[in-house]
């Protein structure tokens, strides 16, 4: 068994209404200690209202070598951006 603590990814929500953002990672023996360590490492300057941690091995990532089939097909589909509508003046800012 490895003596190294598992790696955790840390997500912090800065204020109400915003979403949690990935801020970094750290090591901890379990989930509770990961939250505490995240509090001590990443919220020292009043950055946080809420913390999520997830063990890094539970994150499934896309494969960088699949970049072509994964992302390039959407490059040519400009019609998916809702930029072709004329907004009536009295609708105001959207």
């Amino acid at each position: 068994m490895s003596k190294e603590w598992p790696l955790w990814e840390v997500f912090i929500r800065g204020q109400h209404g915003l979403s949690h953002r990935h801020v970094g990672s750290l090591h901890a023996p379990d989930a509770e200690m990961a939250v505490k360590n995240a509090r001590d490492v990443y919220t020292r300057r009043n950055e946080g209202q809420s913390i999520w941690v997830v063990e890094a091995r539970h994150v499934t990532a896309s494969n960088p070598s699949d970049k072509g089939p994964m992302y390039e097909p959407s490059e040519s589909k400009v019609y998916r951006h809702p930029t072709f509508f004329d907004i009536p003046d009295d609708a105001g800012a959207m």
Partner: protein
Amino acid sequence: MSALYEFCLRMGDSTLVLGHRVSEWCGLAPVLEEDIALANTALDLIGQTQLWLGLAAEVEGSGKTADDLAFLRDVWDFRNALLCELPNGDFGQTLMRQYLFDEWHLGMLKALQGSSDDRVSAIADKAVKEASYHLERSRDTVIGLGDGTEESHARMQAALDYLYPYVGEFFIADALDDAAAKEGIAPELNSLKAGYDAAIAATMNAATLTLPESKFAHKGGRTGRTHTEHLGHMLTNMQWLQRAYPGASW
């Protein structure tokens, strides 16, 4: 000397001395996360020291500052509990000392929130949140290491055996403690004991550690009658700069 002045020294010297001890880990803790956590704890304690010694200086009324009290008094003038000045030892011993302190500290601060002196209750209101977190962290670590590997268990039991005889001092009142209680500044020290004993019994049980049977208590730190040989060494380090370069600031 007034009961309030003496009480502020007893609180502020304990947080100062423990804060300095904990800061000695800075850059040396076993893992980065613990290093930062210990530094945070040390800074909280030093911050509380500024409030307690600031109030002590104000009450004393001769124009001294919190810094004067921290850096220009000698060892026999310190009023910290002996537990706070004991050496760090290994990481487990440091966390056991922290836990034994935090459990008392939080109970004391909660009682002080109802102090008859508004300045005391204001300090307690601020410090109680910090102490709650310190306790949560130190308790979890004591349980984790106590109920951990054979080696961590043995180290934590040795730390408890070494440190436990120093906790009794927190509950032994002298005339000044009695005067502070009478004026409503602070609680009767003994009134915190039952809660403390129950809490540490539960924690040690979860940590699979055995509380020593002996009720012998080292004392003398809070009254200033006698300190351990460790405090003087710590102060030579902590006070060196102000002693060598009086009035130096940045």
